[in-house]
């Protein structure tokens, strides 16, 4: 199992079927992108979960800092008018 430590981590995104977006499903270790695709196929699509795979080096993903969560996300909390919940929906419209 020592080999795994030498292999970089890849984040895996799977598209469940045509028309849907790719969703993050997890990560695998692999020596390069080709191997990451194969590992993702074997780990995450063996029960027909997908029709397309994206892989990206975990190290290449830039994430927001949890310490900045208040500054980034709090200001949106009291602006409920940004949700489209103030419209009267006609009765005839069933699925909205």
């Amino acid at each position: 199992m020592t080999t795994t430590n030498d292999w970089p981590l890849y984040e895996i995104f799977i598209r469940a079927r045509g028309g849907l977006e790719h969703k993050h499903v997890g990560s695998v270790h692999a020596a390069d992108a080709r191997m990451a695709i194969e590992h993702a196929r074997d780990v995450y699509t063996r029960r027909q979960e997908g029709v397309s795979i994206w892989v990206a080096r975990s190290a290449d993903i830039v994430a927001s800092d949890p310490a900045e969560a208040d500054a980034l996300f709090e200001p949106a909390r009291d602006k409920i008018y940004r949700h489209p919940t103030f419209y009267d929906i006609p009765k005839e419209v069933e699925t909205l």
Partner: protein
Amino acid sequence: MSAAVTNAVAGAAVQTVSRVHYLLRLADPSLILAQQLGAWIGHAPAIEEDLGLANTALDLLGQARLLLEYAGELEGRGRDADALAFLRDPSEYLNVTLAEQPNGDFGDTIVRQFLIDAWQCELYERLCGSTDARLAAIAAKAVKEARYHLRYSSGWVVRLGDGTAESHARMQAALARLWPYTQELCAADELDRAMCAEGFGADLDALRDAWSRRVDAVLREATLARPADAPYPWQGKQGRHGEHLGHLLAEMQYLQRAFPGATW
């Protein structure tokens, strides 16, 4: 019965036996490899490779099951896929000898897999055109699996062949050990020719060049030298096996032999 009718009946019986044997030749390499790859679970270099080898093993097991079921039905003696898998003796197994070579290290397993994957790709591609609809349908399913298997094993052949001095040397040694057994893959005997002539089977003579091209392309990329062909004494597909198959079957068949009819 007139002599003509008797001959026709006898001819049909011979044809059925030939087809059953031919189906066993197709099924048994997959079955044996599935068992061998299963032994890697928990031992592969990484957990992702564990899953990769297990997936390939399950594909191969599925192919073997479809082919054995068909063979059992054609044979008409009440043997299903399980009976054919677990209750045949080594001499009744008709896999090519390469499939029963021991796992060795990861490189040995990968080289064995690669050589057979390339062969199964070509074989199944041709069997998609079999005049027998059921065999053609099995081949159409299996060829997609074989193409992925080849992608997987080729990737590793290139990685390790064109890797470090150590990995290159091990891959070259594995290739030298296993190469003599490849002669049997495309050497048509009487049964292969008869099945090809009636449109049931594939043309092995034509397959040889296509297999060589696939293998050569990968070996070149892997910086591995193709060993020279040599005469071979192995006849696994005629039921004459080396020492390894008996051990492998003893383990695989133990439960059904010790507890006949056991289910779970």
